[in-house]
């Protein structure tokens, strides 16, 4: 059995067991009653609706927001990253400035800023697009992640030995052609684990979108605690921890497997 497989099984059993232990320590004999109380709230936490009727809130919202942010950030990050390795200082320096500013901004602050800076709706080509809190959350998270992805992109490209650039130039390739045909295909496998780690961090960061008024799992959890009383608070937080863990941990393991695979060469 591989090292990662062992860790995977250990984590998938051990961490939920640990959380269960905490749950039992806190509630003791009332554990059963508490479970009965929060069970009806589970659909709410997962989907934001009491009966799974819509899929716009709760944990589903965290997933959707993270996927959209990631999709946007990969595109913008690759563009910014190309700027970071540009030969011309006129492109490189501003890119690097933007990258550093975005990377050093706390996500919470960027999310707040989105809330205040972005209008509620914008007109593009005559269409009115409404910027719901979820959309603002997507943009707010995509911004700092863009900076991180740009760095990953730059790192990946620079990890390719200079001999590849040299030999491709001596075969007559131009700079962008080298990037496209020679360097990026090789850098991509190196970048994938980092991108996945980034996605994991982004997903964990979706717990902050509560500030934009998006109806994510943590907002729902706090509402429920306010209504149902703080007796259920521990149980709800444990449940939220478990949700995040069950989503992020398999990604982390997969990432590590890929990292090991990247160590070996093609094919």
């Amino acid at each position, binding site marked *: 059995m591989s090292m990662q497989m062992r860790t995977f099984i250990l984590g998938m059993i051990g961490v939920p067991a640990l959380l269960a232990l905490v749950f039992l320590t806190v509630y003791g004999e009332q554990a059963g009653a508490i479970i009965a109380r929060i069970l009806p709230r589970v659909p709410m936490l997962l989907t934001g609706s009491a009966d799974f009727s819509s899929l716009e809130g709760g944990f589903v919202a965290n997933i959707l927001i993270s996927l959209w942010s990631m999709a946007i950030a990969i595109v913008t990050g690759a563009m910014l990253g190309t700027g970071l390795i540009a030969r011309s200082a006129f492109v490189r320096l501003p890119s690097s400035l933007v990258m550093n500013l975005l990377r050093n901004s706390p996500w919470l602050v960027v999310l707040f800023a989105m809330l205040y800076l972005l209008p509620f709706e914008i007109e593009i080509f005559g269409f009115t697009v409404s910027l719901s809190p979820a959309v603002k959350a997507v943009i707010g998270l995509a911004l700092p992640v863009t900076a991180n992805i740009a760095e990953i992109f730059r790192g990946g490209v620079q990890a390719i030995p200079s001999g590849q650039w040299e*030999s491709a130039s001596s075969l007559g390739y131009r700079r962008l052609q080298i990037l496209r045909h020679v360097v990026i295909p090789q850098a991509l496998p190196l970048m994938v684990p980092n991108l996945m780690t980034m996605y994991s961090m982004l997903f964990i960061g979706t717990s902050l979108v509560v500030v934009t008024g998006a109806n994510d799992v943590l907002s729902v959890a706090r509402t429920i605690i306010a209504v149902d009383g703080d007796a259920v608070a521990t149980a709800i937080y444990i449940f939220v921890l478990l949700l995040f863990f069950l989503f992020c941990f398999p990604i982390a393991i997969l990432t590590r497997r890929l990292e090991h695979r990247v160590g070996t060469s093609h094919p």
Partner: protein
Amino acid sequence: MTTTSTTKPLIEMRDVRKSFGTYDVLNGIALDVREGGVVCIIGPSGSGKSTILRCINGLIPVNSGTIRVGDFAVEAMKTDRELIALRHQVAMVFQQYNLFPHRTVMQNLTMAPIQVLKENPADVRERALKLLAKVRLTGKEDAYPSQLSGGQQQRVAIARALAMQPRVILFDEVTAALDPEMVSEVLNVIRDLAGEGMTCVLVTHEMRFAQEVADEVFFTDRGVIVERGPPKQLFQSPNDPRLKDFLDKVL
């Protein structure tokens, strides 16, 4: 200085100087290679041998002097388009092979002609197969570089350079990274090429090989060509004390 050939040389370097920052690497290099000629450059490590080849290929710009390859004035080239035309004529093979690890042997050979020279893929493939036969690697078309031995990889690199149908090939210590047993495989391929009349410029530490195939040998030290001549003469009766010293150590 004397030139061994009487026709107009294919490659001609005159008073070429190059520095990296404050460090002078080439201090006035003069060198010529006739069409079909085979010349070797020898010299201690750091004396500028690789830099000479890089300059001929336009990979690095020079500070002063002229470099002519065929009708190209390399030192004056600025745009990508000019350089690509040059590199169509001047191929280079590196010590570390620098094959594209994410592509098969066949793709390594065909990529540049198709993507850079926009040649017809079918023609390129056909030519590539012939070249693989020439470097004795028929059957390895679909292997990846990592699945080949060092000697095999270096032969693929030579075939890749040939696939561009160049007039000159520059070899930079192509056997230095190889296990001793594999060296001869690669040298055999170069020997064949030289025999067929391909213009070759070799940087090498294989003195016996240089003696056997080269028309002329150049000895560089600290960025200048200290001595030049036919290999026999250079190796058996060196004039310059530095060359004597170098040959003592290496032979």
